[in-house]
């Protein structure tokens, strides 16, 4: 029997943990560093690729994703060496998708050509807002004009360019967001990521929120309005949501991210990167040291950047598959879920009668209504506890 991961594919995630400045809302593993020895970092990534390909050799690599932090601060040569090493380590799909996250400042736009030559064929840009005041509030280093310019350079360099916006910001009304979204849709090519601002613990926004100083955030109802308006407008524009926050013209979805949501295998390299890898017939959850210096030294000294590597039970995998899979408009395969769990899916009737999910044949998916309250849906559906 084929391993379960083959239902989702196999991708490589490369985490670059550095940024020029830390944004106040961001809880990614990103740091500001005075100087970075990119050669050392390159060597560490290459050594990890070698190690992991020995662990899971011979399988087809579908995607590579450079995420961060700000990977557009990487020297194009480093990116090229990593891509070459991955190609040498695994057989690759002809149409392998290679994405790089970029911040839209002029500095980085200058490197786009180099990334293209290295093999990058898709760029995801953090535009965040089309309003200069809000960009400042979000602590961004670029203006709207600069972002537009970077975006133009990107679309002239790459076939596939997506960008990110953050909405439900402080003092933002549904009307204002609709106007901004329409403008974004007029710029968009075939993919958009639209995230509602999340106040994360341990960030500058999180601290201000706890002290009651982060005012003007929309309440649940108006955030809900904005979410549903977003769905409606993007549907009409031909960029429906294929996942909670990701919109694409059909066929232009991020293939790398779909590996996560379809619960495939992925190798994660770099500080704080996570992986799910199946070897010896067993799927494992893997993570690495969070602190950049520590990760680098560990790889250099021991030849292994992993901090933990835990076998996942069928029960764990079923839960993860459900949680990730229901984010997709297409939902999950009930057969696959039940064979991971080893027992039938439960608690679906009530959710179905409330119009939160649809269950037909092998497919179980959320309705538009259900996706907006996905956490509540998953809380109902998650299997109770192991053995129970």
């Amino acid at each position, binding site marked *: 029997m084929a391993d379960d991961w083959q239902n989702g594919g196999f991708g490589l995630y490369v985490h670059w943990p550095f940024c020029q400045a830390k944004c106040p809302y961001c809880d990614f593993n990103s740091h500001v560093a005075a100087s970075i020895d990119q050669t050392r970092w390159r060597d560490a990534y290459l050594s990890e690729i070698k190690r992991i390909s020995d662990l899971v050799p011979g399988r087809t690599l579908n995607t590579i994703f450079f995420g961060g932090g700000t990977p557009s601060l990487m020297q194009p040569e480093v990116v090229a060496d990593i891509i070459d090493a991955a190609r040498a380590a695994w057989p690759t799909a002809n149409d392998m998708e290679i994405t790089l996250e970029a911040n839209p400042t002029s500095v980085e736009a200058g490197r786009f050509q180099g990334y293209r030559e290295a093999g990058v064929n898709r760029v995801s840009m953090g535009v965040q807002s089309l309003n200069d005041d809000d960009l400042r509030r979000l602590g961004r280093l670029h203006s709207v004009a600069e972002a537009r310019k970077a975006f133009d350079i990107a679309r002239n360099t790459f076939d596939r360019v997506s960008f990110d916006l953050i909405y439900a910001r402080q003092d933002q009304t549904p009307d204002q967001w609709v106007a901004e979204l329409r403008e974004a849709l007029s710029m968009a090519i075939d993919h958009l990521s639209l995230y509602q601002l999340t106040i994360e613990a341990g960030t500058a926004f999180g601290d201000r929120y706890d002290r009651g100083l982060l005012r003007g955030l929309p309440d649940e109802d108006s955030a809900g309005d904005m979410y549903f308006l977003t769905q409606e407008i993007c549907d009409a524009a031909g960029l429906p949501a294929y996942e909670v926050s990701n919109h694409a013209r059909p066929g232009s979805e991020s293939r790398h*991210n779909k590996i*996560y949501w379809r619960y495939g295998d992925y190798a994660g390299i770099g500080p704080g990167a996570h992986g799910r890898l199946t070897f010896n017939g067993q799927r494992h959850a893997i993570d690495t040291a969070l602190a950049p210096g520590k990760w680098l030294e560990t790889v250099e000294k021991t030849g292994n950047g992993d901090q933990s590597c835990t076998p996942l039970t069928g029960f764990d995998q079923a839960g993860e598959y459900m949680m990730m899979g229901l984010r997709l408009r297409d939902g999950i395969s009930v057969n696959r879920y039940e064979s991971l769990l080893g027992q039938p899916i439960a608690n679906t009737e009530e959710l179905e009668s409330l119009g939160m999910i649809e269950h037909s044949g092998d497919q179980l998916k959320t309705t538009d209504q259900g*996706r907006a309250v996905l956490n*509540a849906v998953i809380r109902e559906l*998650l299997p109770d506890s192991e053995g129970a």
Partner: protein
Amino acid sequence: MTELKNIRNFSIVAHIDHGKSTLADRLIQMTGTVAERDMKQQLLDAMDIERERGITIKANSVRIEYPAKDGQTYILNLIDTPGHVDFAYEVSRSMQAVEGSLLVVDASQGVEAQTLANVYQAIEADHEIVPVLNKIDLPAAEPDRVRENIEDVIGIDATDAVEISAKTGLGIPDVLEAIVTRLPAPEGDRDAPLKAMLVDSWYDPYLGVVVMIRVIDGVIKKGDQIKMMQTGASYRLDKLAVLKPQMIDIPELGPGEIGVFTASIKQVRDTKVGDTITHDKKPCDKPLPGFKPSVPVVFCGLFPVDANDFESLRDAIEKLQLNDASFSSEMETSAALGFGFRCGFLGLLHLEVIRDRLEREYDLDLITTAPSVVYHVHMKDGTQQDLHNPADMPDLTYVDHVEEPRIKATIMVPDEYLGDVLKLCQDRRGIQLDLTYAGTRAMVVYDLPLNEVVFDFYDRLKSVTKGYASFDYQFTEYRQDNLVKMQVLVNEEPVDALSMMVHRDRAEQRGRAMCEKLKELIPRHMFKIPIQAAIGGKVIARETLSAMRKDVTAKCYGGDATRKKKLLEKQKAGKKKMRQFGKVEIPQSAFISALKMDD
């Protein structure tokens, strides 16, 4: 054995905080009863909760030796009493054991509600009363005005009131002399058969039940075989002692003396306060009249927050009852709150004190349901039921009428706040009985339903008068009124823990307040939830909690899977802790907050 003429027994009574316990400290200290190094403030307030709240809850007794100016040494037995109205019965029974009272009045405040209540009890007990004006060290003290005030309001002569500061010790020798010269010596016959009054009893972890007595006639000795005339039980005395305030063994006690004994008695409940103690072999002919037993007037449910703590709660309640026979308990089950107890208390402070002790001394987290009084439900078939729990209210079709306890409340307040106090009483269905002035203070007397008072009356009174009002009450009678049970329905399901008895005229207001509150407290579900208050089948207030609109994690990629799943699992586990009402899950915290009504 001390001669009768050299004994003085007295209680110290006053309004709360006027300085009874501090005066007791000074009397103990100046007579050298307690070594200087062992002295501490409010020495007799031994319970943690008394020390922490700075109030007296239990009456305490101490025996003092005082060499008076006349060259003779006197034995003084003093009983410090609580000032708070909930513990008024402690005061009343203490008074039966003594012949006189020191009436302490704070010279910066004057006569307050409990001053009055206590002094009337002292007069009724035929006490000689020595007024004492305390706190004259305070700049705000006005002894002359307060003297007049005592004469006006209470009608006793205050010319010879002793001016003191219990804090600094000023005037204490005068108090000691006044006790000896102005209070009467006890009477009694040493040769008559033993007749002693059971004044109090408490549980001591080392000694078991300790019984405090006042000997009227005869002599009691260690080793005596005694009999309690009301309960009929007979015991051999293991230990006989006086309190100084530690127990000091003594071979015998004669007429007029106060002391304690132990006799292998297991529970406080086996002793009856007010009982007559006599010798088994040679009993006295007539028992003392006894005291009216204290009855709980305020009831509420106590439930453990964590259902696993039920057994611990049961144990804790039993242990506390060893020492406090005035609070009752009975097991109760609630769909909302699980297993718990319906407990009866002497008043709200008593309730709070017991709950605090359960939580602190036994490390429990408790949910307290809304306090309620005891209703008399008269059924159409002519029978009558005592209703302790609104959830048990019988179906209205069988009910003829309901009676509720009424009280006579006395409130003393500076006249600038009078209007607010009258409005408060009026709002609480009060009927004004009297309104008089003494200087700039008004004294209002109201007939009020007890149920309106146990709610939050005292808090409201304090807040509308900035703490300047004092309040005391006495139960008067049961009276019929238009009383109904209000139910709360969440998604059409009744929530038993939130049922309450209300007056029909106040029902809409209460119902609306409860629905609004619950709307804030119940988390949104995937469907909308009607929240209703109803009487019988009739809905009188309604709110709708709208359906959850958005609850989804915006970003969830490969690196988030582990963390986000843990979070959802934790939330799922949290759901298990909630109480299920049909399809609706209500967190415990919602009940806790909903039951904290603040009108």
